[in-house]
């Protein structure tokens, strides 16, 4: 890993609509191992947010504990961040989102943080359709504690120690689909071309957007016999198609072969365009996604790309009917009923 961040930047770096350069969306220097898949994901997040032209301060990035949960320090340095408690990022994000629905919430977690200690909180954030992007940087092992198998490790997969994992894996994308997640995707840290548009679509989605990103651990789980290593994943990848996220204001320029593409128009008028490689996928149907994932798995393949997306998703705020304004912006006058009302409340107890 590098420990010096170059301060030199080309004076004519391109800027986005808000006048920020991509550099302004970067974070501190990563302390993860050189070649860690997580750093590529941080890069993809940086690029996606820059291209979406979201003001950095309107984003909150939250995480749990683990290698993956360290990454919010390494992107979006001008955004508030919260490195919380192991497996508890979803609840902290729920509260943060409840307080201010006007911001964009990025939750970063790992396979240990989500599929083991945080399984309960993950499941309930999905159920509530919390408006957030939830990324799992999935490497099949516990990196910070030196390579123990995690719950997403495939049965028979060997980590650096050489022992095959004896337990069934938890497939988080399938779990999310079964729990009712309104946006589910899977990607690979080594496939930025696929990941960046997926992140854009996930952020634009009004509700819980889950991306399971396979992200090899170069130190503990990148050896022969591992099903989460670079080589194995590259060899077994199959994509549902190419995703394009087109903001509302832009014209769709790309031309796709007819009959193999789907468009999903989002609440703000932007469009997610999926150019499918497998016609069997119907992204509006979670059943179709689950069936296809099973089919590919049976063939020993990892299906990536956009799997499911609900067009008319209602997030937690809409479900519970809370104010359109950020609750934290309500003034004392709006919140405190005052002396006269308290007087009548007293009377009701006499």
């Amino acid at each position, binding site marked *: 890993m590098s420990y010096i961040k170059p301060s030199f930047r080309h004076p004519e770096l391109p800027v986005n609509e808000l006048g920020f350069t991509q550099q302004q969306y970067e974070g*501190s220097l990563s302390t993860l191992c050189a070649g860690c898949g997580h750093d590529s994901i941080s890069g993809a997040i940086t690029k996606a947010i820059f291209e979406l032209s979201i*003001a*950095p*301060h*309107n984003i*909150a990035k*939250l995480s749990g504990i683990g290698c993956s949960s360290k990454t*919010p*320090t390494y992107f979006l*340095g*001008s*955004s*508030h*961040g*919260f*490195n*919380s*408690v192991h497996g*508890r990022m*979803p*609840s*902290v*994000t*729920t*509260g*943060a*989102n*409840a*307080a*201010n629905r*006007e*911001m964009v919430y990025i939750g970063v977690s790992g396979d240990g943080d989500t599929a083991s200690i945080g399984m*309960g*909180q993950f*499941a*309930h954030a999905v159920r*509530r359709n919390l408006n957030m992007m939830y990324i799992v940087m999935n490497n099949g092992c516990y990196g910070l504690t030196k390579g123990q198998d995690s719950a997403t490790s495939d049965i028979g997969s060997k980590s650096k120690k050489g022992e095959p994992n004896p337990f069934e894996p938890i497939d988080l994308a399938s779990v999310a689909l079964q729990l009712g997640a309104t946006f589910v995707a899977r990607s690979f840290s080594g496939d930025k071309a696929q990941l960046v548009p997926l992140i854009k679509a996930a952020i634009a989605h009004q509700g819980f957007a889950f991306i399971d990103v396979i992200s090899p651990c170069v130190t503990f789980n990148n050896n022969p016999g591992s099903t989460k290593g670079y080589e194995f994943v590259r060899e077994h990848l199959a994509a549902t198609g190419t995703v394009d996220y087109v903001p509302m204001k832009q014209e769709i320029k790309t031309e796709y072969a007819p009959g193999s593409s789907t468009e999903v128009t989002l609440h703000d008028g932007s469009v997610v365009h999926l150019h499918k490689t497998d016609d069997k996928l119907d992204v509006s149907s979670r059943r179709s996604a689950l069936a296809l994932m099973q089919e590919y798995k049976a063939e020993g393949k990892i299906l990536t790309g956009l799997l499911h997306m609900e067009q008319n998703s209602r997030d*937690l*705020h809409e479900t*519970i*009917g*809370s*104010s*359109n304004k950020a*609750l*934290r912006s*309500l003034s*004392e006058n*709006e*919140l*405190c*009923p*005052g*002396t006269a*009302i*308290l007087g009548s*409340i*007293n009377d009701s*107890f*006499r």
Partner: protein
Amino acid sequence: MTMTMKKTIHSKNDLVIKFANVNGTGSASANNLFAKALFRMGLSVSPKNIFPSNIQGLPTWYEVRVNDKGYLGRRGGIDIAVCVNPQSMAKDIKEVSPGGYVVYDNTKPLDLRLMRSDVEFIGLPLTQICLDEYQDPRQRQLFKNVIYVGALAALINIDFEVLTSLIGEQFKGKEKLIAPNVHALDLGYQYAKNHFTCPLRITVERRDNRGDKILIDGNTAIGLGAVFGGATMAGWYPITPSTSVIEAFEKYCKRLRVDAGSGKKNYAIVQAEDELAAIGMVIGASWNGARAFTATSGPGISLMSEFLGLAYFAEIPTVLVDVQRTGPSTGMPTRTQQSDVIACAYASHGDTKHVLVFPATPKECFDMTAQAFDLAEQLQTPVIMLTDLDLGMNDTMSEPLEWDEARAYERGKVYSAEQLEAMSEKFGRYIDSDGDGIPYRTYPGTHPTKGAFFTRGTSRDEYAIYTEDGAEYVRNMKRLLKKWETAKSYVPAPVIDNSGKGSDIGVLHYGTSMAATLEAIDYLAQEGIAVDSCRIRAFPFCKAVEEFIEQHSTVFIVEQNRDAQMRSLLVNECEINPKRIVPILNFDGMPVTAKFIQQAINSRLDINKVTPIRKNTTSNKAEQ
């Protein structure tokens, strides 16, 4: 039936009546009606629910104490038992004090083995009256309760019109129900009048002890305190006896916090998947600038402990209400105790301590809840309010709730966008620029380029940058301790009563031990023993608490737990010799009584041969 009794109880406005009912039969509303009628008659009344952890079909009790002196603690002893539950009847009859009364349903003859010659039996054919009067089985069950309230009105002289007017209020909007309920009251009233010499030897009579007081449970007062204190977010997980805190918050939010134009709610309540998530939500919302809170009981405190450590170290305002119950583990989940004091004070791993507040009345529940939001934001730390089942779930006579219109929420040190814009230096989240240990925070989303920082549970420098440098860690921990010192001047001061006018004996107490302690001090005064008192209302302890201990040679502390937990805190934090504080401990799950405290003090004074005379007239003998 008539029996010769050796002893009889004669009293006016001094009684304890205990209702023995079956869960889920509608007895609660009839019993509340009874207590409220006595309250309306201007009497000091303290009803207590004594209920097991069941929902339907098993025994439950309701005990009401009435007296003329304003005492609201439990008295002990039962003068009248209303036994309408055959399951618990044998025990219920045994509990009645000699000379008292047993009111029972005599539709079926009483088992002769339950008879006692030293109490008087009042048989009311409740089941038979209902069979004769009502067709619907549910009505037969419900009105049985109303009928015994009507009979009691005749037996102990309750103003019948007070009862009928309460029925009118209770069924406002459902007027069809008024007449049948009044009829049921009258059935009981007439039966008692016609079959017994009314009133009995135990009676009540109108007084003017009520003033402008209200009769409200502590949990409702807390819910209201959160509404008035500006809470907009509650994350919670159901647990007895705290559940009704959030229910009250929601009830009043629905009434007072819905935007008339849009119909949208100016609040968000999220029922969490567990207590870990509940406190996580509160921390997330507070971090993001909203006032948020949760309510739980002992087991929830255990689950929230990891997060409390994070909130302490990351300095996030967190308001938590702990309505204590009897522990450890599930303990007696529907009985009262003050046994989470240490668990809350030092909740979490590492060096942590938390601000605690201890309300003793519903009014204090209201005030301290609103204040807890101020304290948490001013001090940027968790504030835990410790109440208990006794205060939380029992209607308690209280001074009316008050809100000062001139009061403004104290939101603590938060930089606005304008302040950040005007700043030339780099913002540092953990810089102690005021020297009080409290740094400045920013809410996410405040300024496009300034004021962002990374909140973390890991060690960091003053700019919130991760570091494992030992010196930085020590500097930060010392600053947190400085903040702890600052907290002493922010938290509610103790209530000190030196009516012993310089007595050698002082009693410390807190929370719901107040009522019984003050009553015990009255009894001791009647014996010629003058006692001063100090009610602790917060942790960290104010200087005045330490001074009170120093000023008294014999110091007692009344607690409702086994291990004298507050005493341990005092010993630990104020470096007091443990022998200086004598614990008086009640932990059977029932609220402590004045007699218990009085006896404990008396027996200790006997052992130490303390002559309870005032300081200025005798030498100090307490410390032998």
